[in-house]
């Protein structure tokens, strides 16, 4: 896969090294220090940092501004963009804005429905869906044109990613769906958190059978569990999450004060096993409000030091 953008993440992936990304949620206020602090905790242990876009539909400081803060720190942000809140004018405009700050990575998402957040009575937009957003970014970059057909002066050079959930239903379309995202223009994939490794391996086999692992960089998503309660919550309450009973049992078998440590152990073991799967090109470590644990996970999983580029 040839390098098409100035993205550091793309360079590392193209070099064949395992990439490591992580993510931070912006604050619910104007204090940028909160996101800067989180980024400082992890910056030497990851290649790029995703900034979530009003995740679970809860209003926060915007992803674009947060990415700019990271960029000003000399870091490599991944702009997450959901199609829930923007029409195609706002989407294209934000892409140009991001690119003007040298933000070179974008993750295209549809976003959680607004009913989960603090504005349940609001409208959603969904002028585009996540696949059409992928197409849009690629069109702007590769054709140098706006959706309306006009030329873009200095088109945005963004490395384009998408999310994929290997555990969502219906299972039979999981690989075709990835194929569709790749056809729409996805160059890297960050997966949903993986706890059911067997099912993930099955999915990867389907992906390899279609040769998709040669066309897109797949970063396996991992999230360390903090407690048995969190494991149960993820298992039962989060749509599209597959947490096997053994994991819940293993967490619950430890006394409360030992559970965080056990969660980290499980996470590291998972990374070790995932490294062995053909087609896994890196890891997306989502330590939800637990960013301080990312260095430990990365080090103990043998992913440190990170490449200089």
């Amino acid at each position, binding site marked *: 896969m040839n390098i098409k953008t100035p993205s550091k993440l793309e360079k590392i992936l193209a070099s064949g090294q395992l990439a490591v990304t992580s993510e931070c949620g912006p604050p619910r206020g104007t204090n940028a220090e909160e996101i800067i602090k989180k980024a400082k905790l992890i910056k030497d242990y990851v290649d790029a940092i995703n900034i979530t876009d009003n995740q679970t539909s809860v209003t926060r400081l915007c992803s674009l501004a947060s990415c700019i803060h990271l960029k000003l720190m000399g870091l490599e942000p991944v702009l997450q963009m959901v199609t829930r809140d923007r029409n195609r004018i706002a989407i294209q405009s934000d892409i140009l804005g991001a690119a003007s700050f040298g933000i070179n990575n974008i993750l295209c998402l549809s976003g959680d429905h607004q009913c989960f957040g603090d504005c349940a009575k609001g409208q959603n937009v969904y002028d585009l869906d996540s696949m059409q957003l992928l197409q849009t970014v690629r069109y702007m970059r590769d054709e140098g044109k706006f959706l309306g057909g006009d030329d873009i002066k200095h088109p945005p050079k963004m490395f384009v990613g998408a999310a994929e959930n290997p555990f969502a239903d219906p299972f039979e*379309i999981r690989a075709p769906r990835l194929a569709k995202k790749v056809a729409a223009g996805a160059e890297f994939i960050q997966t949903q958190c993986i706890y059911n490794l067997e099912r993930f391996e099955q999915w990867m086999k389907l992906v390899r059978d279609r040769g998709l692992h040669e066309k897109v960089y797949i970063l396996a998503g991992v999230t360390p569990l903090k407690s048995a309660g969190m494991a149960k919550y993820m298992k039962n309450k989060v749509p599209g999450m597959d947490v096997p009973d053994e994991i819940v049992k293993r967490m619950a078998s430890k006394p409360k004060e030992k559970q965080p440590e056990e969660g980290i152990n499980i996470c590291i073991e998972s990374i070790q096993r995932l490294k062995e799967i053909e087609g896994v090109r890196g890891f997306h470590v989502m330590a939800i409000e637990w960013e301080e644990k990312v260095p430990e996970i990365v080090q103990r999983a043998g992913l440190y030091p990170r490449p200089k580029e």
Partner: protein
Amino acid sequence: MIIADKKPIEEIIEAIKDYKKILILGCNECVTVCEAGGKKEVEILASALRMYFLNQSKDVKIDEKTLERQCDHEYLEEIRNTVENYDSILSLACGVGVQFTAEKYHSTPVFPGVNTCFLGATEERGVWVERCQACGKCILASTGGICPVSRCAKRILNGPCGGSSKGKCEINKDLACAWQLIIDRLKALGKLDEYEKITPIKDWSTDRAGGPRKVIREDVKQ
């Protein structure tokens, strides 16, 4: 058909409480079928309002009339000669009927008695479900006859999104995921390979986005 739901009587009372001669105007089409604004609902509402005002010691005349339709000039003309007997009309038609009545009878205030909800079908008596959002450019041919615009909470044209779980939508576990239905149907039709075609960015200008819409048929127009 257009599905409507009765407004709470408290809200209706608040709107019409200062009027003295009220015509409750039902509609014999969609709102009759969905039991929100037909002759029967007119009778019940009229009786309840009469009792309410009597109980308040208010002398209010409440009459009942149900038209064949309120979205056609010819039927609305039927009240041309009697409309002057009233100081307000409470229309139990959909939003279309309420507006058409108001347009026709300029100087008479017209109030809605129902909430107009969606374009739908009767799943069973007492249960009505949405099936169309009148986007103006039907894509059912490529989605196995199941509409993601009206049945997916995100109107996603290349679904399902990551929130689909065990065939249900992330917003409500009693709601079928439209994309699960589409995939099941494509499979039943032996057309699952069509799933991999990417639906292009939609032209929403025929939807609400394009402003108030109009259909003109020169061949039948007078």
